């Protein structure tokens, strides 16, 4: 006789690996600081993805080997990186011209909350004592062709991050296209949240219970297409 096992979703690395599979060969991509950065490690063999970092580098490569870093070659998270063959450096206004002008194919960002209409909140909890800091998030969501969110499905204390409407200050209105969580891949469409893939051992109702907005099951549609 065993106690019921609580289903376990994807780990952060598994989420990154899964998201990486959906990035097309040749895409120009900005990966947000934190969890989304991991995606770079899991680009499938044979695909060439060009990474953009908003502090002025297109063609960002992995961290330098020990002792080979340059403190003036860093990413948006201010960690040392490298430059790939075919890279280019440019100034900040040119970098955000790329972003705002719709030249990047995809950005993947973290989230505090995503609403069913695609609103994103990811820059401020609005707390009294917090130092407000926005960085490039508002520019990315307003300019990049596709905006994916990569996040745990719920907060550490179990509160759903996918909600009917955001309670935190917004980063952008109606900007999110797709959400990769530990539990599922969810498209944000005119109809709201639609599950397009469940993580192994996760059921639709398990996700729906942890989502604070109506959730549609679009898996069959997808599979039948």
């Amino acid at each position: 006789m065993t106690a019921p096992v609580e289903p376990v979703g994807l780990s952060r690395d598994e989420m990154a690996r899964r998201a990486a599979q959906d990035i097309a060969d040749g895409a120009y991509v900005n990966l947000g600081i934190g969890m989304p950065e991991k995606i770079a490690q899991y680009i499938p063999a044979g695909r060439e993805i060009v990474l953009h970092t908003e502090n002025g580098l297109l063609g960002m490569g992995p961290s330098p080997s020990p002792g080979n870093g340059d403190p003036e070659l860093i990413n948006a998270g201010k960690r040392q990186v490298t430059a790939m063959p075919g890279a280019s450096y440019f100034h900040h206004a040119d970098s955000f011209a790329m972003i705002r002008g719709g030249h990047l194919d995809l950005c993947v960002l973290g989230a505090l909350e995503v609403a069913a209409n695609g609103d994103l909140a990811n820059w401020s909890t609005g707390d009294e004592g917090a130092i407000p800091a926005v960085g490039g998030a508002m520019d990315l969501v307003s300019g990049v062709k596709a905006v994916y969110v990569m996040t745990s499905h719920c907060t550490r204390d179990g509160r759903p991050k996918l909600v009917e409407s955001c309670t935190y200050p917004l980063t952008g209105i109606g900007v999110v296209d797709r959400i990769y969580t530990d539990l599922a891949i969810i498209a944000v469409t005119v109809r709201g949240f639609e599950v397009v893939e469940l993580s192994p051992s996760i059921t639709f109702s398990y996700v729906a219970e942890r989502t604070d907005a109506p959730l549609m099951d679009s898996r069959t549609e997808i599979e039948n297409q």
Partner: protein
Amino acid sequence: MIDKRTASAADAVATVGDGATVMIGGFGEAGSPIELIHALIDNGARGLTVVNNNTGSGEVGLAALIKNGQVDKMICSYPRSANSTVFPDLYRAGEIELELVPQGTLAERIRAGGAGIAAFFTPTGAGTELANGKEVRDFGGRPHVLEHGLTADLALIKAQVADWHGNLVFNKTARNFAPVMAMAAKHTSVQATTLVTPGALDPEVVVTPGIFVDLVVHVETPAQESDLVANGASYP
């Protein structure tokens, strides 16, 4: 693997359709992508709006495109040139439209289009007839004119060196409008005198990052407009 090379100038203009807006790099003959313009003549698309600082000279390149009846409207700052009657004749006959824009406003509108800036306030032209009908607002006690970003369906660009990713460097004052036009068009095609593999260009000296470029055609010995005009050449 990212490889934006194509063997054919025809491919480079294949996305164009009737009624398209086409930005063409160059200031006079410097930076004029003659071979790509001639491919656009071969393509035959009509009803085009063309953005270029001038209107070409002789009966080659941009002037030939206009003469071939493919251009309904020019957006430029200086439609006169020493060696062309093509545009002036059509303009006087009322057969081609002209949107005259101060040169700096033209460059800035193209940059704005490429940078996702919908519109901007500039002091240039305030109080002149080129501001007629436009919103004017005072900033710091000076009148400024509201000008709108300009985008295009296709940009045709001449570069000195391109790599397979589309990273570009230019030759001297042939750079002119090319970098901002590459940004402002949905599809940017480049003719490059030299093609190199990614990594051959120093990332510090790239002028146009490859993200702004869709296709690159190798044109090893590009024709120079003044030579063609001096020889009385015409196209097609």
